[in-house]
C-alpha cells in the first residue's frame, strides 16, 4: 500500500504547520480554478452556502470547516468539495475531493497526489495530444456529416413535396375512380337482381310441379309438418348457426381459463363434456384461486421425469423455459396469458394520443394483408449482408409505380372501358345476357381492386406524412428503411417509425413498436414488444449519434428485456455541435504554448 514513512514525514510537517503555525501562510491556492481565485483573496472568507466563515489561514488547512467544501478546495478534508487541476497541455479538470491524495493519479499533471507518497508523472502532453487527435477526427467526421445531413434534408424536403403532390393527385383519382366503381356496382347489382328474379321464377315453377306431385303421395303427413315452409327454415338455420357460435365462444374461454365452476352454465351442450371433466379435476379440494394455481403446477410436477423436474424448478429462478422447443411454446403461452394486461395497455394508449390506436390498426392491416410474406423474403434473400435496406413497406410503392407512372392513361382507360360497358349492356333485357353480366362483374372487380389499392396507398402516404421526422425532416429517409446489426446468433432489426425485432434463426421476437423520439431527437424509443416471462414487455432505446453512415451498433440488454442500441447517422451531425467541438479544439491548442514555456 502506501508507504507509511513518507506519510509520516508529511504529517509531521503538516502537524507543526497546523498546531504551532496559526500565523503561518496557508498552503497557497491549491485546487482553486483561476476564475475563483478572487473569492479567496479576503482575510475572512464565507462558506459559499453561508453556513459559516473561516480565516484565510484555514483555507486548505486539511480540516473541513464548511460543509459545502469552500475552505478545502485543495485537500480531501471536505466530502463535497471539488479540486481543480490545471493539466497544462490538456484540459483542466474538476475532481471530487475524495480523489485528492488517495494514492491514485487522476489529474494528468499529477497535482492531485501531492501528499500521498505516490509519484504521478505528468502525462498531460501525451494525453492532450491523444485528445486533440481524437477531437480532430471527430471534427472531421462532423464536417463531412454536416454536409451529408444538409443533403439529406434537401432530399427529404423534395421527397416530401413529391409525396404530398402524389397524395393530392391520388386523392383526386380516388374521387374519380370511386364514382366509376359506384356506377359499375349499381349496374352489377341491377344485373344480379334481374338474374335473381329469373332464378326465383324458375324455382317457383319447379316447386309447383313438385308440390303437386307430393300432394298426391304424402297427404297424411301435412297436418304435422306442413307449417315448416321455406321462410321458416332459413330462420331456423340462422338461429342454430348463431347458437353454435356462441357455444364455441364459451368453449374457447373455458379452454383458456381451464378452471372455474361458472363453466357449469354452459354444460347443457354436448361439446362441453371434456371441459367439464377438466374443471371437476381442477377444483377438487381447492380452496382459493391462488391455491388452484399452485395445485395446477404441482399436479404437473408429479408426473415429470427427474430431468424435467430439475428443469422446471430451475426455470423458476431463471425464467427460462423447460420444454424442448422453448421459444415457440412459451411465446404462444405468453400471448394467451397476456390478453388481459394488453387490453389495458391499449386503452391507455388511446387515452394518451387519440390517433395512435387507429394508426396501429392500419399498420396491422398492411402487415397482414400484403407485407408479411414480402418482408421475410426481402430480408432473407436480398439483404442478408447489408446492414441497411429499404423497408418492405416501400414494396408498396414499387408495386404501385406502374399504375401511377402513366396514371392519366390508366385512369382514362378504366373510365373509357366502364363507359363502354355501361352503354353496351342493357340491364333491362330479359333474359340477362350472361356474357354481359360477366363483363360487368369483371370490370367491377378490377376497378374496385384498383380503388382499394389506391386507397391503401393514400393511407400509407398519409400515415407516413403524419410522422415527426425532426425539425428539419432529417429523419425522413429513415421511414422506409431498416437497420440491422448482427451479434452472435441474433440479428437485430430496427425500422424507425415502425418496429424493432430480434431474429434468431426462424423465430422473431418483437423488441417493440415505434413509440416516440426523446431527448430532442437523440433517442428513438420502441415499446410494448413481446412480453418477457416473469418480466416486462420488451423495449428498445436507440441512441443516435453523429456518424457518416447510417449504422446500427452495440445492441445491449442492461436489464432483462430492456434493450439499448446505438445508431450512428449523419442526421445527428449538427452544425452547432461542430462549432462547439472546434471551439474546444481551439482551447486545447491554446494550452500548448504554456506547456512549451514550462519545458
Amino acid at each position: 500500500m502506501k508507504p507509511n514513512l513518507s506519510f509520516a514525514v508529511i504529517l509531521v510537517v503538516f502537524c507543526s504547520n497546523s498546531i504551532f503555525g496559526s500565523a503561518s501562510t496557508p498552503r497557497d491556492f491549491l485546487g482553486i480554478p483561476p476564475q475563483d481565485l478572487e473569492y479567496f483573496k479576503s482575510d475572512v472568507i464565507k462558506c459559499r452556502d453561508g453556513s459559516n466563515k473561516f480565516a484565510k489561514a484555514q483555507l486548505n488547512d486539511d480540516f473541513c470547516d464548511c460543509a459545502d467544501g469552500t475552505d478545502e478546495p485543495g485537500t480531501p478534508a471536505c466530502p463535497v468539495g471539488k479540486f481543480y487541476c490545471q493539466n497544462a497541455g490538456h484540459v483542466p479538470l474538476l475532481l471530487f475531493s475524495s480523489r485528492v491524495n488517495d494514492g491514485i493519479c487522476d489529474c494528468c499533471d499529477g497535482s492531485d497526489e501531492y501528499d500521498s507518497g505516490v509519484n504521478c508523472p505528468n502525462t498531460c502532453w501525451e494525453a492532450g495530444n491523444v485528445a486533440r487527435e481524437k477531437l480532430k477526427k471527430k471534427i472531421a467526421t462532423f464536417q463531412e456529416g454536416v454536409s451529408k445531413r444538409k443533403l439529406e434534408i434537401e432530399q427529404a424536403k423534395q421527397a416530401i413535396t413529391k409525396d404530398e403532390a402524389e397524395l393530392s393527385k391520388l386523392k383526386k383519382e380516388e374521387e374519380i375512380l370511386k364514382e366509376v366503381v359506384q356506377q359499375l356496382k349499381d349496374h352489377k347489382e341491377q344485373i344480379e337482381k334481374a338474374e335473381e328474379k329469373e332464378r326465383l321464377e324458375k324455382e317457383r315453377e319447379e316447386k309447383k310441379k313438385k308440390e303437386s306431385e307430393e300432394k298426391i303421395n304424402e297427404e297424411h303427413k301435412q297436418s304435422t309438418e306442413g307449417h315448416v315452409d321455406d321462410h321458416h327454415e332459413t330462420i331456423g338455420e340462422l338461429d342454430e348457426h348463431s347458437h353454435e357460435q356462441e357455444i364455441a365462444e364459451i368453449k374457447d374461454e373455458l379452454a383458456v381459463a381451464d378452471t372455474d365452476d361458472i363453466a357449469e352454465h354452459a354444460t347443457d351442450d354436448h361439446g362441453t363434456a371434456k371441459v367439464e371433466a377438466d374443471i371437476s379435476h381442477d377444483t377438487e379440494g381447492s380452496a382459493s384461486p391462488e391455491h388452484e394455481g399452485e395445485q395446477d403446477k404441482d399436479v404437473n410436477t408429479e408426473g415429470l421425469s427427474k430431468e424435467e423436474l430439475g428443469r422446471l424448478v430451475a426455470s423458476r429462478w431463471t425464467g427460462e423455459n423447460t420444454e424442448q422447443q422453448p421459444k415457440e411454446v412459451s411465446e404462444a403461452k405468453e400471448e394467451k396469458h397476456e390478453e388481459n394486461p394488453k387490453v389495458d395497455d391499449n386503452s391507455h394508449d388511446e387515452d394518451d394520443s387519440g390517433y395512435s390506436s387507429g394508426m396501429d390498426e392500419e399498420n396491422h392491416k398492411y402487415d397482414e394483408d400484403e407485407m408479411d410474406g414480402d418482408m421475410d423474403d426481402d430480408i432473407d434473400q436480398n439483404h442478408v449482408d447489408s446492414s441497411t435496406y429499404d423497408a418492405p413497406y416501400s414494396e408498396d410503392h414499387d408495386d404501385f409505380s406502374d399504375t401511377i407512372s402513366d396514371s392519366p392513361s390508366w385512369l382514362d382507360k378504366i373510365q373509357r372501358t366502364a363507359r363502354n360497358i355501361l352503354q353496351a349492356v342493357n340491364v333491362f333485357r330479359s333474359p340477362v345476357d350472361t356474357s354481359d353480366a360477366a363483363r360487368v362483374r369483371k370490370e367491377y372487380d378490377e376497378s374496385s381492386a384498383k380503388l382499394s389499392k389506391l386507397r391503401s396507398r393514400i393511407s400509407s402516404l398519409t400515415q407516413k406524412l403524419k410522422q415527426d421526422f425532426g425539425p428539419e425532416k432529417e429523419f425522413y429517409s429513415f421511414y422506409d428503411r431498416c437497420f440491422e446489426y448482427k451479434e452472435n446468433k441474433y440479428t437485430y432489426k430496427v425500422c424507425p417509425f415502425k418496429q424493432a425485432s430480434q431474429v434468431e434463426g426462424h423465430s422473431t421476437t418483437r423488441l417493440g413498436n415505434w413509440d416516440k423520439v426523446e431527448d430532442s431527437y437523440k433517442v428513438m424509443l420502441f415499446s410494448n414488444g413481446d412480453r418477457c416471462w416473469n418480466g416486462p414487455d420488451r423495449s428498445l432505446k436507440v441512441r443516435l449519434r453523429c456518424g457518416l453512415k447510417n449504422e446500427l451498433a452495440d445492441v445491449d440488454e442492461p436489464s432483462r428485456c430492456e434493450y439499448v442500441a446505438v445508431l450512428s447517422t449523419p442526421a445527428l451531425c449538427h452544425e452547432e455541435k461542430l462549432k462547439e467541438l472546434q471551439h474546444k479544439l481551439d482551447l486545447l491548442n491554446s494550452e500548448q504554448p504554456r506547456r512549451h514555456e514550462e519545458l
Partner: protein
Amino acid sequence: MATIRSLLLLLLFLLITSVSSWKKDEFRNCNQTPFCKRARSRNPRSCSLIAADVAIHNGDLTAKLVPKNGEPIEKPLILKLSVYKDGILRVRVDEDPNLGPPKKRFEVPDVVLEEFESTKLWLSRVLDEVVDGDEGMSSVVYLSSGFEAVVRRDPFEVYVRRKGGHRVLSMNSNGLFDFEQLREKKEGEDWAESFRSHTDSRPYGPQSISFDVSFYGANFVYGIPEHATALALSPTRGPDVEFSEPYRLFNLDVFEYLHDSPFGIYGSIPLMLSHGKGSGTNGFFWLNAAEMQIDVLGKGWDAEAGIALPSSQERIDTLWMSEAGIVDAFFFLGPEPKDVVQQYTSVTGRPSMPQHFATAYHQCRWNYRDEEDVENVDSKFDEFDIPYDVLWLDIDHTNGKRYFTWDRALFPHPEEMQKKLADKGRHMVTIVDPHIKRDDDYYIHKEATNNGYYVKDSSGRDYDGWCWPGSSSYLDVLNPEIRSWWADKFSLQNYVGSTPSLYIWNDMNEPSVFNGPEVTMPRDAQHHGGVEHREVHNAYGYYFHMATADGLLKRGEGNDRPFVLSRAFFPGSQRFGAIWTGDNTAEWEHLRVSVPMVLTLGLTGITFSGADVGGFFGNPDTELLVRWYQLGAYYPFFRAHAHHDTKRREPWLFGDHNTELMRDAIRTRYILLPYFYTLFREANTTGVPVMRPLWMEFPADEATFKNDEAFMVGDSILVQGIYTAGAKHASVYLPGGQSWYDMKTGVVYKGGVAHKLGVSDDSIPAFQKAGTIIPRKDRFRRSSTQMVNDPYTLVIALDSSLEAEGELYVDDGKSFEFGQGAYIHRRFSFKNGQVTSTNIAAPSSGKTFSSNCIIDRIILLGLPSGSKSALVEPGSHKLNIESGPLNLHARSSSKALTIRQPNVRIADDWTIKIL
C-alpha cells in the same frame, strides 16, 4: 357473457401471479413427516425411562436410561453428562456401542472446538439427595459458583438449578423424551417413506429423537434460525395458538420464501435463547445435523394431560424433535444476554475477523454480464462519487456453470479486469457452488469421478441431481480428504483467471437440487463413513463453506483472511465467513423481517450477516430501495443484489435526488467503518454480535423484549427502520435511563420513552446513546482501501454525569498478525472534563502494528456551553472549541461543539482537557 368473461380473465390473472409464489405443497409439513407427527402427538409423561447405574467415568457423570416397568424391551441408552468452564453443561445420550447396534449413529464432527473440549472440568464426585417430594434419588454435580446440575433418576430428568433451588433449564420435565433405537428390519416391515414422487428407502428404519426443554422464568425465547419470523418466537402450540407448524430446521432452497413463516429455509442453528426480566438469559443448544422440528409451547399446552408439574416456577416449555443422530446438548446459564452468546461461541467458535474491505459496501447483481458491464458499473460509482468496495459476479460468468472457469466470450481478460478494480482498491467476488456439472471434459468432474469424491445415491452410484449446469453431482464435503482437495482448487495456479483480490461466494449449498425431494438431496444418499444424508443434511453447506474458506486460507499461505459468503449455515459457520438471508423479495415486509432475521443470526453466533438490499426478486419502488439502503447500511454485511429478471437498480438510476439519498446511506456506512470494525473485533473475541437486539443492551427493560423493528449497532447506536411507504412519522422507543442524541441533528431525546418523531426521506432515525464515544472517518474515498491513512473524528456523547466511553480497534485489515498482537486497541473516555486515550491491547506476542493516523476532529455532544478552549497533553497545546458541522454533508446544517485539529495520534496516549 361479459361478466363471465371478465371473471375468467381475473382467474387467469390469479393463475399467472400464483405461478411465482411459494410452492407450499412441495415441502413437507409436520403431518407429512412421520417422526414429527409421532412426536407431536405424544402425551406428557409418556416417557418411562429412569436413570440407573449413575457413576463417574472419565470425569463425566454416566448413567443408563432404562424403562421403569418390567423387562426392558429396548436396550439401555447411555447418558453422559459433562461440565465445562463457565458452567456449561453438556448432555449426551446415545445407544450403547457395546451392545452392537446395527450402525453407529452420527455425531457431527468438526463443530465443537478442540479448545472447548480442553476446558472440561473433571468431575470426581456426585452427591445423592432426595429433592423435595420425590420418591427416588437425584444425583447432583457442581456446575459453577451458584449453579448445580441435577439428574433425577425416576422419572428421568436433567436440570440446572441455582444453589437456592430455583430451576434454570431442564430437559424431560414433561416426560416427552423418546429415542428410537436402530434395529433389524422385521419380516414384512416396510420402512420406506414417500413424498410426492420421491421415495426415501430408509434402510435403517425409524431413528428419531425428541424431548422437551424448559426455560424457567423466561418471558420469551429467541434463536433457532433460519426462519422469516419475528425475533421473539411465538408459540406454535397451546390453547391460544391457531394451528401452526413447528419451527422447522431443514436447510432448503425455498423459491420466494414468505416473510412470516416457521418453515425452514437455507440454514439451521439449533440454539434457543431465553430471556426474562427476573431470570436473565439462558441458552439451549442441540448439536444435531438431521432435520429438526421445534415447538414453542404456549402456556397451558399440557392442560389436558392434567398432570402436576415438577416445578411451580413460571417457564416456557419447548419440544425438540429430530429425525436422526444423537442427543448432544449444551446448557448455557448466562446470566446476561452477552454471556450466553459468549458461552455458545466458546463451544462452536468465535466469528472470524473479516477482511476490512468486506465490512464496506458490496455491489452485486445476477448478473454483471461481461467485462464491459463491470467496467461501466465500476466507473459509474466513480462518476457519482459513491464509494464501494466489492463487485460480484454471479453464475453466468462461468463457462456453462462450471465453477472455476470463465465464459471467455464475456470475460476474455479476467485477470486484467480484477487488476483494474484492484488499482482502485476494489475487490471482486465470484460464485462457486457445490454442484459439479457432469461433463467428462470438465476437470473438476473428471477428478471427482475418478477419486470417488461425490455423494452416492442409495444404490451406491454417484448421485446425479439437477442444478444450474443441468445434470450435476455433489462433492462429499463431509470427508476431510475431499475438503482438502477442494481447497487446493482455489490456488492462483489452479483457479485460472483468479488474482489475489478475488474472493468467493458459496450459493446453493443447502444443497439445492432442483429435482430432488423438497429441492434438495434425497435423505438416503450416502456420505463418507457410511453416513446417510438425513444425518448430515443441515451441515452439508457448513462443510462446503469450511472447505472454501480453507481454500482461500491456503491460497494466501495463511496470511490472508478468507472472505466467503455462504447461504447455507450451521453452528460454527461464523468461523468461515459471512451469511446472507438468501433470495428475499422487494417488498416492505421483507425489509421489515430482515431485521429480526439478521438479529437472530447474530444471537446464534453468526454476526457477519445481512439481507439483499433492495430485495432479490421483483422490482422495489424507489422509496423502498432508498429505505433499504438506509437500513442496510447498518447490516453487518451490506450488499445490494438483484435477480436477473429485475430492472437495473444501481444507486444512480433513480434521478439525482434518489442518487443523493442512496449515496448518503452508503456513506453513512463508510463514516462508521472504524466503529463497525471495532465491533467486529469485539465479536471476534467475545462472540457478541455487531447488530444486537435492544434487550441485549437493556436486559432489564421489558419494553425491549419483543422489539425487533429497532436494533442496536454495538452498544452505542440505536437504529429504527422505516418499513412503510410514505412514512411521515415513526414511533421510536429509546430504552434505558440515559438520553439519546439524534445522529443527524444532535438533538437530545429522553430515554425510557417512546417518541413520536417526524421522518423525512433523507435518513432513518439513528441515535447515539449518551455516555458513548464513536470513532468515525468523515472523508470519503472510492473505496475503504484509500481511507487507511485518513484522520478520525471522535463523537463524544456525554451522559447526565458528563461522562462517556468508547473504543477503537485498528489492524492491517487483512492478515492474521493481529493474532500475535499486531493491532491498536484504545479506550477513549471522557471524565472529569477531560478526554483520555488509553491502551487496552493485550501485551503483544511478537508482532506490532503502527499507524500514523490522527484524530483531527472531536465533536462534543451534551457539553454545557461556556467551554471555549481545550489543552492537549502531552505538548500543552491550547485549542479553541468552536461550533462546527456535526456531519460534513452539504445538506446537513446541524452544528456541534468541536475541538478543531487536536491532531493526536490514535496510537498514542494523550489527554485533552476542556478548559
